[in-house]
């Protein structure tokens, strides 16, 4: 077993998980809510791109940002028309409603596309790699995903820490009532947050669809990976979420290398260990 290779491939897989997780972290960071349909939106992103690529012949790398734009608009509308109505003092209604969305998305996809697994093809780039030394080669596509995740983390950090919108996001998460007294409309802010989240989710979905095969019921697994990465990283920093995703990816890769049945389990064990020993996450920066 080449240990170095295992860690590098795991870290690159973590780059994809980072894209999964940052969309969840945006919503949790602003609304203190978990979107149960998060994983299903990732799968929906993959199907959307799959359909557009099949219909137009455009490169998936062109379709990805277009999908992100459409998803952002969809996220804004979804938050304004449905999810904002579920927010209040009780934590259960938004969970139940997003769980319902999850079921609807899975079944609509099943009805339209059947249960057959699909994937998005990118031709030769899918297998092209660059050699790093004698025993180590990394694929170009995983590198592109990793670089995109880095760029998204940097962009989100910038938006949250250096812009007025980000300041409003943090304030409404800290104290929604006083944020309103400052003149902030929380429903509007939540809609912006969901728009940002779903834009990231769409990118994650397209890349997932290129890397893996996907089927309508795959979403819940991606929700779990996202949730695990956010918890491992800790709240309050997208770099923390990014790092948490890398740790999750490496843990899974090491597990797979030891035994093909242990990969996912190894990720869960790291997640549980963090919950037990460091429940606020490894890189928490939040005020709680």
């Amino acid at each position, binding site marked *: 077993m080449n240990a170095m290779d295992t860690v590098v491939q795991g870290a690159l897989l973590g780059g994809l998980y980072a894209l999964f997780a940052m969309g969840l972290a945006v919503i949790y960071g602003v609304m203190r809510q978990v979107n149960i349909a998060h994983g299903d939106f990732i799968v929906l992103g993959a199907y959307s791109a799959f359909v557009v690529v099949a219909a137009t012949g455009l490169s998936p790398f062109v379709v990805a940002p277009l999908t992100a734009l459409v998803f952002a608009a969809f996220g804004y509308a979804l938050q304004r028309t449905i999810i904002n109505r579920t927010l209040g003092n009780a934590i259960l209604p938004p969970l139940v409603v997003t769980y319902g969305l999850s079921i609807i998305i899975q079944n609509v996809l099943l009805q339209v596309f059947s249960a057959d697994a699909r994937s998005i093809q990118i031709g030769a780039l899918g297998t092209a790699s660059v050699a790093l030394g004698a025993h180590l080669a990394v694929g170009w596509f995983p590198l592109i995903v990793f670089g995109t995740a880095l760029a998204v983390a940097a962009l989100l950090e910038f938006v949250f820490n250096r812009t007025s919108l980000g300041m409003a996001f943090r*304030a409404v998460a*800290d104290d929604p*009532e006083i944020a*309103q*007294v*400052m*003149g902030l*409309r929380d429903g509007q802010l939540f809609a912006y947050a969901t728009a940002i989240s779903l834009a990231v989710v769409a990118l994650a979905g397209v890349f997932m669809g290129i890397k893996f095969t996907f089927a309508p019921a795959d979403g819940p697994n991606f929700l779990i990976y996202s949730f695990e990465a956010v918890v491992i990283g800790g709240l309050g920093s997208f770099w923390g979420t990014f790092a948490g995703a890398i740790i999750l990816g490496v843990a899974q890769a090491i597990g797979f290398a030891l035994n093909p049945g242990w990969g996912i389990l190894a990720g869960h064990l790291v997640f549980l260990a963090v919950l037990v020993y460091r429940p606020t996450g490894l890189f928490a920066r*939040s*005020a709680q």
Partner: protein
Amino acid sequence: MSLLAVHELVAHYGDFQALFGVDVTVAQGECVALIGSNGAGKSTLLRSIAGLIPARAENVVFDGTPIGAETAPAIARRGIALVPEGRRLFASLSVEENLRMGTFSRRPGPWTLARVYDLFPVLRDKRATPALALSGGQQQMAAIGRALMANPRLLMCDEISLGLAPAVAKDVYAALRRVRADGLATIIVEQDIELARTMSDRAYCFTHGRVTLTGRSAELTRPQISAAYFGVK
């Protein structure tokens, strides 16, 4: 005509009724004190005016417009600013970011970061510090500065001396006097009755959600206030 007219306002927290038909007015440039024991309804009145507790439109009239049914952000944009009880600064924001939060009500005017820093120079030195790393008095200054950044027409201060050493509380009120020098209408909720009387033009005494005494602060006598305060007739 008064700047703010609260008329027959009632307020509930669930099944608990906190205000039973309260009438309060604030004239342009006036400082009004609300006094009364804990749970008498003073903070509830401020929260209702700020739009955090629902009311009927005509219960709260601001500058001639019925605003009782408007949302908190809409009322903030009209120029009513609240310095909430317990300060409630935003924990994950720096001092300067907390001050800038006041600008979301989109009301340009004389109050800018520079002017707030001139009023409270210590905040300029601590501008990049997390807000909750400040001392209690400094946090109170930041909370007042945050409200001023909205360039309010009515400033509502809820127990700004709470938990502060007497000397610090004096400084905070001295600053509030300077803020009011150009005629900003103000409501203060204050436990220290002497302080409330010297600071205000008029006072309302609250008992169990009702106004039991009102008058010019200078003319209210201690026995009158004690009687109203403790609900003794």
